[in-house]
């Protein structure tokens, strides 16, 4: 298979992730979109590593995955803390700005 398919898939996934972060209201959905973005990047790394025959890309994926796991844990902890105060996961409600 031509590598370009994998790279296109990865780009589309990344854009879907970005749009999710920018446009969705639910904080948990935003976190899921961030995970989608991370996976898109992992896909890029793995496909390029396979096509160039260099295992360094796959090693980097391991690092990225562990960081993603930690980040997911922390992110959800923040969501829980927010919910305790605001009783909502709607990100447009989490705004202290007064004008």
């Amino acid at each position: 298979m031509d590598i370009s398919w994998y790279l296109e898939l990865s780009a589309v996934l990344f854009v879907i992730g970005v749009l999710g972060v920018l446009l969705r209201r639910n904080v948990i959905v935003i976190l899921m979109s961030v995970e989608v973005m991370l996976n898109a990047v992992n896909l890029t790394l793995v496909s390029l590593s396979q096509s160039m025959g260099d295992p360094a890309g796959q090693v980097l994926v391991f690092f990225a995955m562990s960081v993603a796991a930690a980040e997911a844990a922390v992110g959800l902890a923040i969501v829980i803390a927010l919910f305790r105060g605001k009783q909502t996961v709607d990100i447009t409600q989490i705004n202290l700005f007064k004008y």
Partner: protein
Amino acid sequence: MDPAFLVWLILLLPLAGAVLNGIVPLFIPGLRQKEGLIGSLGTAMVVIPFVLALYLFVTFAGEPVIVTMFTWMAAGDLNVSFAYRVDELSLIMTLIVTGVGGVIHLYSNGYMHGDPSFWRFFSYLNLFIFMMLNLVLGNNLPVLFLGWEGVGLCSYLLIGFWYENLNNSAAANKAFIMNRIGDFAFLLAMFILFRELGSLDFDVILTQGPAMSQTSINWVVFLLFFASTGKSAQIPLYTWLPDAMAGPTPVSALIHAATMVTSGLYLLARLSVIVLSAPVIMALIAIMGALTALVAATIAITQNDIKKVLAYSTVSQLGYMFLSSGVGAFSVAIFHVMTHAFFKGCLFLGSGSVIHSMEHVEHELHESGEGRIDPQDMRTMGGLKKYMPSTRITFMLATLAIAGIPLFAGFFSKDEILARAFAQGYDGAFYASFAWIIGVITALLTAIYMTRCYVLTFEGTERWPAAETVHPHESPWTMTTALWILGVLSVVGGFIGLPAVIGEGHLNWIHHFLAGEEGPVREAGEGHVPLGLEWGLIALSSLIALAGVGVAWQWFSQHGVAFDARIRARFGKLYDWAAALYHVDDFYNKTFVSAVVDGAEKGLAPFDQRVVDGLVNGLARATRGISQLLRYIQTGEVQSYAVGIVFGMVLVVVLMLFA
């Protein structure tokens, strides 16, 4: 001791005194009452330089000593350093400045006692001495000009010393602004000299100056003379000096009698080599000096305020000095500067002593409800000789000196001026004869108005209310000591310049010192007046002085203040015109001052309000408007900020790919 080090000390001690007395009490208010400390420091910082200058004088070997400190400006072809010159002329001037200055500092200890700004006074006085020393010791025109401007500044600070009274501030402004007009002329002269000669050092100016084109020389000398009319109060820029009497009396004595006003004379004497090359301008100088002397003397007779009489007297005597310079007798002008410092300083300090006492009288009268008197008005004085013996005797000695009574200091210098003017006229210069005649008339007037001043103040009966119970007192030792020092000098100070008829000119020490073979002052020829005529002139001067004093004594002792009415009746319109100062102040106000004030009110003020303020306010309004629009970027929502990040990232990637 190394002369360079001494010059350094002479200059820096007064500056240090000014800084210490000015800065320390400013930050430590508790020290402001320590008059003893402040006064002693201030006085010492002038007396020590006097002693050092005396040492330099005694050890002076004939060759000028040049002390260069550091470079001031080096730009293109212009190279100016802080360089100082010790030669005969600067030594005499330094001795006068520090000597008479030291005496006046001593006097100020007594006069300013009790004033809450005592410390500020001494700081300004020391600063003045520093600036004046820069003026007389400088070896190039920029350093001289620094001193020139500096003494103008100190004059402003000291005239307006009691600044809460707006009249004093106005007088200070008038002095400074009129001086600045003269300073503009000074700058133009420096520009011409630099363009022609490429340097402003005295050595260069004095050797290569006379080789300039006649037009350049004429312009330079004229401009420098015009600058001197401002600083030394001659027609047309003299009206600031009578107003300057608003300052404390030691200021009037030091600045407006003994030192600052003589700066113009020093300048002409220093550049005598060039001045002699401009005979047309010299004629102008002599005539203007003579006219100023006469006009000021006529005004002095009509004045009732004791300080105003002395102020116009100063203008008149300065006119004599310019007369002398105009006929080429520069060393005699400096001689008269010296004797004038003695007797005019003594007169001013004496008037201060009188005013000091009369202020106590005024205070007592006011307390007991007798009404107010003006402590400076001679019409409410009289008979003070009973209460103030030291002041009376020294004032009398100084009056006799200024009147030109033989053997007193003023006689020798004034007579020498008139003799030299006559000699130049005898040799054919018509302007000199004209100046001589004016000078003789003025000498008679001088004797009369000064005797009037003395008699109305000290002789006769007391003219203030409740005179049997309210008495003035003699002044403290700090003031009377100063009076005696200057009084004695007014008597003996003239003997250093005995006229040429005695000992064939060998006994005229000051002339040989300043204008001799190697002297710095160049002069016009001595003239060929026969000996008999010279003695005749001396006899004439003596006669005029004695007649003036005698006649005025008779008039004013017998009739007191009432005699003024008789003079007025005799001269009518002329007297009134003189008493109104010939309306010169009014003329200046109507033409120049109102032009500037109206121009500011109608032209500059609207410009400032509409254009300048408009620009500044408009800028503020524009900023506000833009910020009103931009504030919507801040929403507080995380997603809108995330949009911003994504946009930025896309921009960077595009730039990296395509730029």
